């Protein structure tokens, strides 16, 4: 075994996956998170950090396009695996690891390069004959120049178009939020729900499970976004214990309720129907009944407009819409 092979085995002993959760892939995601915890690994926060693109569930067309783009942007060495059922999680991670160790295959992968920008410099020279519309489409590598619009104080600021989702850590699966931001303040938002792959049906995974497990899952995402990684990990362990059938005690609620700093940070964030992120977090941990996903999605643009990206993410995580509820249910099947 050569030196490079030895080094690769040492360095990539545990894959660091970027999780892409397809609609209906909740069970697979839970299995993958469990496996990863057992291996002592952690998830990546973005494509640059990740060496594996791990798809949980079956991806539809839109999601597949997004995944292909992300796959081309992952730095080499990289592996791509799909987990279509929870039992395959362990094997999928082992397969990812084996692919990462396979130097010959990695050397054969195409290397991603940004588009050639040399041509764009010539367009700069002859601007006199162009109309305003054409000028909007770049001299900057073909990218459109940012448009300007009045912000909440009447200043003309640049506007950006951002898409939050579909592949984003600690984000509800299948949700895409197209936002127009000025700076990091959201001025407009539009909700899109990804179409599920054919054959993926409801009901949601959480239907057959004790109520507080779903809440703990959402709370873990919110806590992770708030920076409390260790508390989020505890919430996930508790969630897995409940899914397995145990009924652990509710000391998590007491621990979080006592955190005055967290309360100060979440108070007043994302006000919706009388509650804010803090009250919703306590509700999630308690296993309180959650509002209907359709209602939440309809109200989401209004909740999020005017918030900056950080508070918007916290608001969405605290609302925690379960988009699997919107999946069509196969008729004649009892309890999925």
């Amino acid at each position, binding site marked *: 075994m050569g030196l490079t092979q030895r*080094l*690769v085995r*040492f*360095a*990539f*002993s545990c894959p660091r996956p970027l999780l892409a959760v397809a609609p209906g892939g909740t069970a697979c995601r839970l299995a993958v998170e469990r496996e990863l915890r057992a291996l*002592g690994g952690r998830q990546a*926060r*973005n494509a*640059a*950090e990740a*060496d594996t693109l791990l798809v949980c569930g079956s991806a539809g067309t839109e999601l597949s396009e997004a995944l292909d783009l992300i796959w081309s*942007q992952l*730095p*080499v*060495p990289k592996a791509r695996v799909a987990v279509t059922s929870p039992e395959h999680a362990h094997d999928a991670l082992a397969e990812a690891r084996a692919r990462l160790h396979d130097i010959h295959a990695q050397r054969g992968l195409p*290397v*991603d*390069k*940004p*588009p050639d*920008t040399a041509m764009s410099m010539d367009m700069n020279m002859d601007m006199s004959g162009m109309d305003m519309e054409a000028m909007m489409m770049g001299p*900057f*590598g073909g*990218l459109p120049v940012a448009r300007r619009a009045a912000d909440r104080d009447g200043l003309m600021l640049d506007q*950006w178009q*951002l898409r939050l989702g579909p592949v*984003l*850590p*600690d984000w509800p699966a299948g949700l895409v939020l197209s936002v127009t931001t000025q*700076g*990091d303040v959201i001025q407009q938002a539009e909700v899109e729900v990804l179409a599920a792959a054919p054959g993926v049906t409801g009901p949601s995974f959480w239907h057959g499970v004790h109520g507080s497990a779903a809440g703990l899952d959402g709370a873990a995402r919110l806590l*992770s*976004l*708030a*920076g*409390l*990684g*260790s*508390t989020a*990990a505890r919430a996930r362990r508790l969630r897995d214990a409940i899914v397995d059938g145990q009924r652990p005690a509710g000391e998590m609620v007491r621990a979080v309720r006592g*955190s005055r*700093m*967290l309360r*100060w*940070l979440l108070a007043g964030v994302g006000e919706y129907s009388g509650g804010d992120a803090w009250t919703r977090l306590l509700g999630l941990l308690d296993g309180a009944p959650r509002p209907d996903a359709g209602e939440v999605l309809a109200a989401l643009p209004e909740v999020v407009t005017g918030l900056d*990206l*950080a*508070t918007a*993410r*916290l608001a969405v995580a605290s609302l925690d819409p379960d988009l699997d509820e919107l999946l069509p249910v196969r008729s004649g099947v009892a309890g999925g």
Partner: protein
Amino acid sequence: MVESGPVWSAFLLPVVLAFLVAYASAVDSGSVLAPAREAVRQVLRQTRATVLPDTLLWRLGVGMPLVAAGLMLVVVPLGTWSVADNPVGVVWFNAADVLLWAAVWLAGWGANTHYGLVGGYRFLAQALAYELPLMFGLAAPALASGSLRIGAVVAAQHGLWFVVWQPVALLAYLFGVLGFSLWGPMSYPLGADIAGGVAVELAGPDRLVWQAGRYALLAAGAAFAVPLFLGGGAGPLLPAWLWSLVKTLAVLTALVWLRARVPTLRADRLAELAWLVLVPLTLLQLLAVGLVEIGVI
């Protein structure tokens, strides 16, 4: 008591820094092999290329934290020797940490991505909050010892360490260290909600240099707290340099441990906390130190 070392001691500096970085990384991931594993992993990976980045400024921004940490360590004594015990050591440290204002913003802006730019501006908002408490925190030991030279600050702690009667200054200083290392509660510019913020497009050797820079800043900040507040190399039994090292590692462990256990402070809340609570408290601390110096207390 603290003297400048010979010229060759400058070559020891990267060794000490590498050791501290490896220690911090090992404590952070809970495994001794983790630093080596992460280093090899990043060296073997491909770097990212984005559309129309400002490559020079981007790479400059990514590399500067490590350089700033090295500059900070130049004035920190290990026992009774430091690489250069210059007459304005305290201000030298502050100047090195101000370099980060440029570094982090350039690292975020240079990549030409949304999240990077948002992260860069988040850092500026955060830096406006922690910088004044940090400066007042640094001023207190200087005021108490009547000199900006680190050797004089260490000598003035013969008998009573500054941490005992200037705890607010130490807290404000550690707050500043967390702030410029983008660590724990102050990791807002690197937030998971913006997919890593400033670090969103860093992969391969870039990422290694950036991560090492963050650990190095934590280590340099922890190391600087020792001569400033914890009596330098003073202590029974063990030689001075070993005491310095032990104290540094203790402070560093405490700082690293904070990472996933304290919620991340968003800039708007952080500004409230810093300007309404910390700045008045540090000013009161300076007043107390001043009164002690002129003999009123």
